[in-house]
């Protein structure tokens, strides 16, 4: 800090910066809300662009499969290895499949898969649409009589919303398999016994909220990625920024959605 600048002026400038950043954050939220409303308006209108939707579902699902599998497997392994000593201390190792099953299905599976997909799919959508905006491909589409919002945005958002719950199921299964491998080596538990215990401990009330939550996670990934890319500023730097901010903003949004989902689920459990 320059010694000649009084401290209260530095504080004032800091407060001004925070105010400006908060204001632009609120403007962005407003624009994203408008974008979301437009998505819901366009998605139910003809033409439905089914071919493009299926293509996007295939690409998003297929391209994320390996990453989700690896992440899920490692999470299952690590969770079991880390929890085992504590459960052993209390003589409760037999609770391991139930505990791992519930925590993965309710919370860890959906949030980890969503975070992985935010990095993989969200940034991909942001970069792709951003690049199309910068190189005037979106304008070219509009001039050719195609609604680019419907063709590019609606299909991508819908595809990731549909694919994410499926990826979460897949990730959960792989994570539980990873957990079983640890248990089979360390605790000599059979495959049937492990998974019987997992399924016995799971209830309808564990799976449904997690699935609904996953749908909202998918929607958030698709909407934020598309929003950032579709309104990308000119230049290659703009494309990079669109991809990067898509991941950062989505990750933050995922935790907010998660908090709301847990809160709402808790209210239903109490009723």
């Amino acid at each position, binding site marked *: 800090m320059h010694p000649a600048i009084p401290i209260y002026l530095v504080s004032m400038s800091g407060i001004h910066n925070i105010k400006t950043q908060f204001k632009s954050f609120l403007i962005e939220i407003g624009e994203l809300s408008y974008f979301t409303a437009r998505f819901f308006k366009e998605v139910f209108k003809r033409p439905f662009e089914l071919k493009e939707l299926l293509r996007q579902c295939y690409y998003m699902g297929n391209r994320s499969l390996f990453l989700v599998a690896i992440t899920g497997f490692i999470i299952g392994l690590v969770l079991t290895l880390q929890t085992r000593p504590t459960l052993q201390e209390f003589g409760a190792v037999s609770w391991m499949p139930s505990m791992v099953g519930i925590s993965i299905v309710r919370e860890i599976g959906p949030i980890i898969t969503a975070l992985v997909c935010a990095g993989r799919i969200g940034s991909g959508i942001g970069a792709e649409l951003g690049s199309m905006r910068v190189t005037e491909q979106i304008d070219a*589409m509009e001039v050719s009589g*195609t609604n680019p919002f419907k063709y590019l945005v609606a299909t991508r958002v819908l595809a990731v919303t549909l694919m994410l719950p499926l990826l979460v199921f897949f990730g959960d299964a792989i994570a539980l398999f990873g957990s079983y491998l640890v248990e089979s080596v360390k605790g000599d538990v059979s495959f049937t016994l492990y998974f019987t215990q997992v399924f016995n401990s799971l209830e309808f009330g564990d799976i449904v909220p997690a699935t609904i939550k996953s749908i909202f996670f998918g929607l958030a990934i698709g909407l934020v990625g598309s929003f950032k890319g579709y309104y990308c500023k000119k230049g290659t730097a703009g494309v990079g920024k669109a991809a990067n901010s898509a991941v950062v903003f989505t990750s933050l949004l995922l935790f907010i959605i998660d908090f709301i989902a847990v809160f709402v689920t808790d209210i239903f459990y109490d009723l």
Partner: protein
Amino acid sequence: MMDKKNIPNQEIVLEIKDLRKSFGDNHVLNGFNMQLHQGENLVIMGKSGSGKSVMIKCLVGLLEADSGSISVMKNDITKLDQEALDILRADIGFLFQGSALYDSMTVRENLEFPLRRHKQKNSLDTDINELVAEALENVGLANTQDLMPSELSGGMKRRIALARTLILKPKIILYDEPTSGLDPITAKEIIMLMQEVQQKYGTSSLIITHDIDCARVIADQMILLIDGIDYAVGTFQELSASKDPKIKAFFK
């Protein structure tokens, strides 16, 4: 301001009256006027940032004008709804400065895209194949159907983009800097191609450029866009002989 001369005695297909467009305090267009006649090649020249691209984007509804009227084949596009605008757009071809080919599609898919979306939705696949082949033949790139845009050179991309523009047989073609970023030989080839297209299909062309050679070869009429208005209108010879320093600056 110079008077407009040598206007072909043909029907007006595109007319702009008192077009104004601002971005905040930046007044880009301050009452721009122009007329394009059937079969005419009209060149609009202006410095970078003079509002040429803004004007052409207002013409196809990519940007909304603040005021003024834009009449395309007797339809005021500022008053059309989205559906009517999309139908009208089939008659207006647009060649973008950077070609704007769809990266994720092959050349064939790029050409099929406007066909499958427009009035030939009920066409058979064989008809579409024939139209794609014809469009590619017109630009001398018949064997590129299965290539991706990333495999093409700058000149080839521009030709394919022209083929995509031509595939719906538009009545008006808008060229946004058709020769920018190309070497002189390729630029010349593109200009010749534009002339061939004009002769073959009798289209009316609006060409935005600051390539003086392009303007000399192709322009029936020229407009100099200076300070957001149609500062000077005339043939290439008339404008190049002008004593006005603002006009002379373009022909140095």
